[in-house]
């Protein structure tokens, strides 16, 4: 007879499985990249800013584009678990629900980070961006903001998978709850790019937001997974 598996072991294996599935299907990364690219190009046609104006609006444009693209990836995350009802196999197993949540969140974090790494240089070129503040602060904001988007997104995508119109339901739930994080990431980015204000208040706010929502999602995920 088998024994109950460990949390980290299952997280690692589920993450490896998700990366393998994504590598083979490229469902999430392709749709996310294409969508984000479209947003950047359309925005660049819509605005013709000076360098100073670019620094003021780039934070907002960048994070809104990433938020929309993230939603595309988040919908894919759970769709592949619904195909062939594979999620039932996980629910029946003794593997901890939190391991699945953590692996999905880490996977999404990786996908969105790849998107950002590819998109930010495009943004710099299209909007002729030069940061006045230190770039390392942008990296800190990037990590905290990406985690804020994916941790909530992964949780609410799981919550909406059993609804009839889940593609619509996810943004309807996710966007309002992400407003504090979105505000913090946009203002922190703008503060660093323009050098006008200190970004640390917003960075602290993002860190607290991450901590609170990671804890809540982690605790509640088992209930969401087993909801009928």
């Amino acid at each position: 007879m088998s024994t109950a598996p460990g949390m980290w072991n299952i997280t690692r294996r589920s993450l490896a499985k998700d990366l393998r599935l994504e590598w083979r299907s490229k469902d999430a990364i392709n749709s996310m990249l294409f969508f984000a690219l479209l947003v950047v190009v359309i925005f660049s046609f819509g605005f013709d800013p000076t360098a100073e104006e670019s620094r003021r609006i780039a934070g907002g444009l960048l994070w809104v584009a990433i938020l929309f693209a993230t939603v595309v990836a988040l919908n894919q995350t759970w769709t592949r678990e619904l195909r062939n009802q594979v999620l039932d196999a996980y629910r029946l197993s003794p593997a901890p629900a939190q391991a699945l949540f953590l692996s999905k969140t880490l996977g999404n974090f990786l996908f969105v980070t790849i998107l950002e790494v590819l998109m930010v240089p495009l943004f710099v070129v299209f909007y002729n961006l030069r940061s006045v503040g230190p770039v390392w602060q942008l990296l800190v904001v990037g990590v905290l903001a990406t985690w804020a988007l994916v941790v909530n997104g992964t949780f609410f995508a799981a919550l909406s998978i059993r609804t009839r119109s889940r593609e619509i339901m996810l943004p309807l739930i996710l966007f309002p709850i992400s407003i504090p994080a979105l505000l913090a990431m946009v203002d922190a980015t703008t503060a660093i790019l323009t050098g006008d204000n200190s970004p640390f208040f917003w960075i602290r706010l993002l860190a607290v937001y991450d901590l609170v929502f990671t804890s809540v999602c982690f605790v509640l995920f088992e209930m969401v997974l087993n909801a009928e």
Partner: protein
Amino acid sequence: MRDVVRHFGRFAALRGVTADFAPGSLYVLLGENGAGKSTLLRIIAGLLAPSRGTVSVLGSTDIASMATRFGYMGHAPLLYDEMSAMENLMYFAALYGCPERERCEAAIRTVGLDPTLERRVGQYSQGMRQRISLARAIVHSPELLFLDEPFSNVDIRSAKQMTILLARMRDQGTTIFVVTHQAAIMEPVADECLVLDAGRLVAREKGIPARLLTPYRAEERAALVSQGGVAQSGQGPAERPEMEAER
């Protein structure tokens, strides 16, 4: 299980089912579409909670804590299409804390397939997917095995092989529940059959009686065989009278 009721909205899928099951037996659940067979199976396996009533499995009402001792094969194969059979089994075996390669290879061989096959499951035939799904359900050597329509889209030879495997597992002490419409395939090995109708347990018998093995009454069969018989009889292959009497 005692007085188990399950509602889906206003629809009652199960209406007060009470039954006891002995370990190391093979049970076949029969009944028409919508009779409540799959719902009953999912409730015993812990995938669904009853709306009312109690279910106790292996001496415990905390079914989730028994998860390592269950194996489940559903309507859908519960497999990732983009991964090979071996990759699927290695992952699911890991969820049960037994990710040994030899164990997964043995499970795949047990269902009559080749573990070295690198093709992705999505490219398998329906019958092969069913067999890999069975391998997934037994890879952790469960004490209780739940199979929902294991023979759908499986050719008769493969179905017989699966039946032999199930009989062997039963003889080794595994308790097995099989939901099927193909009662004849399970007839040689079934210990008991339970007949559900409209959410109620209407019959429970040793083995599978001959009257449940054929979908036709004698006169229906004769009518179908003779030319134009269906039109003359004025009815299609209706429900068996035994089933009606049992309601």
